[in-house]
């Protein structure tokens, strides 16, 4: 006897879709002579630079906005997978590939489709929330090993 299909929990369905596609509209960025619209899920991270923000996409291209990071974080608040990693960076958790510990004890993340040495630091104050969001258990956290120097090309450097 065929089983009766169970109704899908809308929240579960939303969360499943959310992991793949952002609920946000494409983000307008400034290019020379034009505005370019970047799909939020294609953003790897956003970093504060002199004069504004660089939005780094999955092709490692940088697009300019002139907001403050706090103002942009406010615009991105409807997408819980954009995570404020530090005072100067927001990361897209969908695109995080791995977590690393540098020789100096800084925790950094690398991204899917970006070169492995392109990394963003997670501030100590944000790390607990990051671990929770990414499902990093205490054991997984404890397994993080210090890397030799020179592995990272941190986005801020």
């Amino acid at each position, binding site marked *: 006897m065929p089983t009766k299909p169970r109704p899908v929990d809308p929240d579960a369905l939303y969360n499943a879709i959310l992991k793949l596609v952002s609920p946000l509209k*494409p983000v307008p960025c*400034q290019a020379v002579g034009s505005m370019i619209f970047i799909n939020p899920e294609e953003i790897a991270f956003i970093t504060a630079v002199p004069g504004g923000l660089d939005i780094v996409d999955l092709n490692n291209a940088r697009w300019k906005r*002139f907001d403050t990071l706090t103002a942009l974080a406010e615009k991105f608040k409807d997408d819980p997978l954009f995570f404020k990693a530090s005072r100067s960076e927001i990361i897209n958790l969908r695109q995080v590939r791995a977590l690393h510990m540098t020789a100096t004890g800084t925790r950094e993340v690398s991204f899917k489709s970006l070169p492995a040495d392109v990394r963003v630091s997670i501030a100590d104050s944000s790390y607990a929330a990051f671990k929770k969001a990414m499902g990093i258990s205490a054991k997984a956290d404890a397994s993080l090993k210090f890397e030799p120097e020179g592995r990272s090309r941190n986005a801020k450097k």
Partner: protein
Amino acid sequence: MLRNSLDAGTFLALAGPESPVIINSGDIAHAWREGTIAAAALLDGSVLKSYDSFDDIKKTLLKTGLFIQIQRSAIANFRKIKTVSPLAKGNYLLTFIGQAAPVELNAAYTAEAKKLLEVKKLDHVEPFDRPTYWLMKENIKHYQKLIYLMTKEELLKNFSDSAGNPIISRLIANFLYQFALRIRAGEAEPLEGGNVRSLWYMIKPAISKLGALEGSDHYKTLSEVMARLVTHKIVTYKEYGLTEEENWIIGKTNPHVILLAEKRSHFKFIQGFNAQYGISILAAGGIPGMITMEFFTTALKKAITQSHLKEIPIITLTDYDPAGDLVVSTFIDNLKTYNVPKTKFIRLVQPGVFTPEELEAYKYSLVGENEVTPAMVKKWLKKTGGINGQAYGLETDALMITPSKVKTLFYEKAAPYLKTIKYGSWKKIDTSY
């Protein structure tokens, strides 16, 4: 792309090569009227015709909430727009993700586009930082290594086009910006009394490494790039420690009244007006350079009050010809660049101040003049009427033959703007020229 499937909207049957093909509306970039039917440009770059009329297709697609009208007979999928670039007359060029051909957004339909794209302007992002935008436009980037110390290979790697040809203007722009940043950070010293040529000597060896010194006047390139960076408020002449000739004086009692002389040789003469009326004077020597404008306006703005800014009279002792007007219009434009926007152009040299005999004696033909093009003459003639409708001009010196007449005329024109009339004495200063 997953996003395409999620905001699909609806299915449509369009005409395939052999039979109807079912298209997801999320895969359509834009569609337009073609005769009695519609044509749709798909994201993969292909174009398919419809079986139904354009109006029916338009109705179906607009109902999805993902399409907007972009022309009288064209609609576009706003979710698939990749870039928006301003064109002339308020129109915009839209490009799409994927391979679909770009299409124009007509000025009449921009309000809806702004609303759906959730942007305040289609020209640039908001908030907008103009200096940073110009840094992007000039291709100015951060370089760890001092540009003037780079090897030929490094220079070519950083400042050449896709064919490997050096782009000297880009090299110069980056050098100027890097040097300014280093001065601001205290890592380099300002030139202290140098001029633009001092900067040229710093970068000249790097340009030489690229073999680009011959054939082009790159000192001129540097001057132009520098003026551009200053105009866009990326750098200032002052921060480099540069000085200029200072053929100008800011008035003490009527600084808001500016007497602009075209010829540098008239500087001594116009100092008399500064001494007598406390007005500001500038003998440009042609079109005032940006360095002069920066120093002049900085000093001017310190001297004038907010109420003065309502209207700044620019009384000109310039030739009555297209080149003279170009000096004034450029001066006024550059004042705007430095936030002195409201000016009034009052010319001293004009046909009305001469007798018919004098006019006949002093006028000269603008036809064949080297300094101006026929188009400039035509435009100027339309604006001013020339002399009795003819393409003739007058040199400033036609008026300067009688200095007392200049003084009378000046007072006549300046009096309504002078806050304090009597300030000093003309006699105290030698104004012969």
